[in-house]
């Protein structure tokens, strides 16, 4: 293997690179009221083409119109209850076969109910691969 000044390289056919495979999508709608000292869960599924590809998971909120990186963060800051404030919406995922089951949950530790802003999160798993 040769030595390289990596900052001088745009692309090298001597090195592997990520290949975009496909994008997979799913959606979760969040709405309703979270009772005091309660947690509400919302679920959705994305079917991936392989369990051996890398993927990056993103969510786009229909309310904010913005994209959020999901799979590297245990929670995302989204405006779900108050249009002027950030709130913490937790997210985690589990696999069953090639299905990635995504759960969003709102943890209301306060003494009053929280009314959620009705919105749909469209999730996209951007799959890419290396020749492992």
């Amino acid at each position, binding site marked *: 293997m040769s030595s390289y*000044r990596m900052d001088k390289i745009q692309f090298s056919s001597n090195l592997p690179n990520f290949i975009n495979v496909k994008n997979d999508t799913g959606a979760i709608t969040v709405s309703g009221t979270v009772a005091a000292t309660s947690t509400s869960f919302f679920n959705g599924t994305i079917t991936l083409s392989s369990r051996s590809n890398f993927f990056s998971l993103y969510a786009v909120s229909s309310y904010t119109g913005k994209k959020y990186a999901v799979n590297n963060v245990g929670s995302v800051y989204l405006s779900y209850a108050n249009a002027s404030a950030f709130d913490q919406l*937790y997210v985690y995922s589990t696999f069953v076969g090639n299905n990635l089951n995504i759960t969003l949950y709102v943890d209301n530790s306060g003494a009053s109910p929280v009314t959620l802003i009705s919105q749909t999160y469209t999730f996209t798993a951007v799959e890419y691969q290396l020749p*492992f």
Partner: protein
Amino acid sequence: MSQISNAQNIAFSTAFATDKICGIYNGSFAGTAYDTIYAGYLYVKKIPHTFGRPVMCEGLFSYDNVNFFPSGTGYSLATAFCMYSDSNFIYILYENTINTVYYKIVATWIDNYDLNNPLITPVLSSSSNYSKFFDSRYNYQKVLMSGVITLPNPGVGVDTPVSIEHNLGYLPTYKLYFESLPNQVWQQIGGGSQDVFLYNPGQQFELYDECSKTTLDLHLLSGASSATSARCWYRIYYDV
């Protein structure tokens, strides 16, 4: 700037860099064969590297060597892995020591990490799959923008977002790495008390993001004894 308007349809363009892969590591280890423990519950496996500086790491992990899932904190705790690197090691963080862990790790280079860009010898797997690295039938992931931004410590409980303008007119894909602790390049982590990888919340930073059609906004959250600033490295990709 490139005159190409449909770069998604071509394998590669010299107008766009790719992720600069400098290391690929395949292997396995027994969950009990950890090197150290953080905060009494977070197990750490260290993979040595020879680059003399941190690299950006992401990994695929499996307990059966068939069904892999990527590193990141947004998974159920029994299967969650997170990674960071420093100048000498790649660190794998995990909670479940019951099983053998199979890993596939990709390390990508950080240009101008310290304004010293040495010659390096990439470390690639010995797998026979690495007989060919470019195939024009594929769409290689193209980097549209990349760089580093220094985020000042906003203070505990203070959210002062910092924007990176991209002005693309659409919502791109992107990756973020940052110094959750000084001189360590982490995958993005956040989630407060619900994030198991935030093992030292008094000193670690958390990083959140939100991306519009014009900016990528970064939110750095601080612990009481966090550093005065944290660098964040970003890559914004051409493809959506």
